[in-house]
């Protein structure tokens, strides 16, 4: 999932300080699962914003809506009939949702309510860690299902480096060395011979280095 966290409260109030009516839009997907921008967080933020405004002697009307997704036209269309009634929108979706909403509704300012962090997993309740950087050429088949691009600080393709000590990375004593994990798992799988195979230089053009990416599936197009 895409992991995000709520922006500092002052930053959010700064966006809407001159507004009287705002539309606060949550998303039912990733940001709900990581407790940053689902229906519940929409309710809490609405309550907090109303309180902050009342305290200053101002009034703020907050319309709470949580869409199924904010990265698809059909769900964003659900607010078309009401969006013009509001001075601005705060979207609690990831950066993708915020942008798609802004592209669609040119006349109403759309502000982000969360900072989008990474693609990751829920390691345990309340703890999320990164697993994928969307490099466009998955090498998990060679690396025993452990990604050195997202989990090695140096993104080494043939690791570990000299900074790996007792299975931990030199940048953080609590951070597992991705290459130690790879070697351990290859051993477990009886595939340690694979470790001898050098992974060739990666073609980074499919990553962000090649500019914004696009995928077209003609078979799915109308």
């Amino acid at each position, binding site marked *: 999932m895409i992991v995000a966290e709520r922006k500092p409260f002052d930053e959010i109030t700064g966006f809407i300080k001159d507004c009287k009516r705002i539309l606060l839009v949550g998303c039912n997907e990733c940001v709900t699962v990581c407790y940053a921008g689902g229906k519940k967080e929409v309710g*809490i933020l609405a309550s*907090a914003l109303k*309180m902050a405004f009342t305290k200053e002697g101002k009034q703020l009307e907050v319309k709470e809506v949580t869409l199924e997704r904010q990265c698809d036209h059909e769900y964003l269309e659900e607010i078309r009939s009401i969006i013009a009634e509001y001075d601005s929108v705060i979207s609690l979706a990831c950066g993708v949702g915020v942008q798609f909403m802004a592209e669609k509704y040119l006349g109403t300012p759309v502000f982000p309510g969360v900072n989008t962090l990474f693609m990751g997993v829920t390691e345990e309740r309340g703890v999320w860690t990164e697993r994928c950087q969307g490099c466009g050429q998955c090498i998990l088949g060679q690396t025993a299902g452990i990604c050195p691009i997202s989990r090695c600080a140096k993104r080494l393709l043939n690791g570990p480096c000299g900074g790996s000590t007792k299975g931990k990375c030199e940048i953080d004593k609590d951070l597992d060395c991705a290459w130690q994990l790879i070697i351990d798992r290859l051993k477990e799988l009886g595939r340690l011979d694979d470790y001898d195979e050098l992974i060739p230089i990666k073609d980074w053009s499919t990553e962000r280095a090649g500019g914004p990416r696009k995928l077209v599936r003609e078979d799915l197009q109308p």
Partner: protein
Amino acid sequence: MRLTYPDSIRIIRLPCTGKVDVIHMMEAFRKGADGVYVVGCLEGECHFLTGNLRAKKRVEYTKKLLDDIGIVGERLEMYNIAASDGPRFAEVAKEMHERIKALGPNPVRGAIQNRRTA
């Protein structure tokens, strides 16, 4: 026991403090409560195992949020009191009453009242 505690306190009964969510505490303040305290069973003695520990974390989170808004997190507190400990319940009620009196009214409530009289 016939113990007394300040009449400023209104009790809302719940099956377990584990039911208390951030939004419940926030809405209490938004509607003008000067202070809120959550009273759970003693730690380690929750009938639902970890309800009171969850409540404690949510109270801590909400305190920070209230500080961010400028409502002062100290207006919110979590206490653990055994169901049989009436004297402690009365003591805590007095303690909270005094704390909130010293902090003064919830600024949100003042603003709501000003709006009504305006």
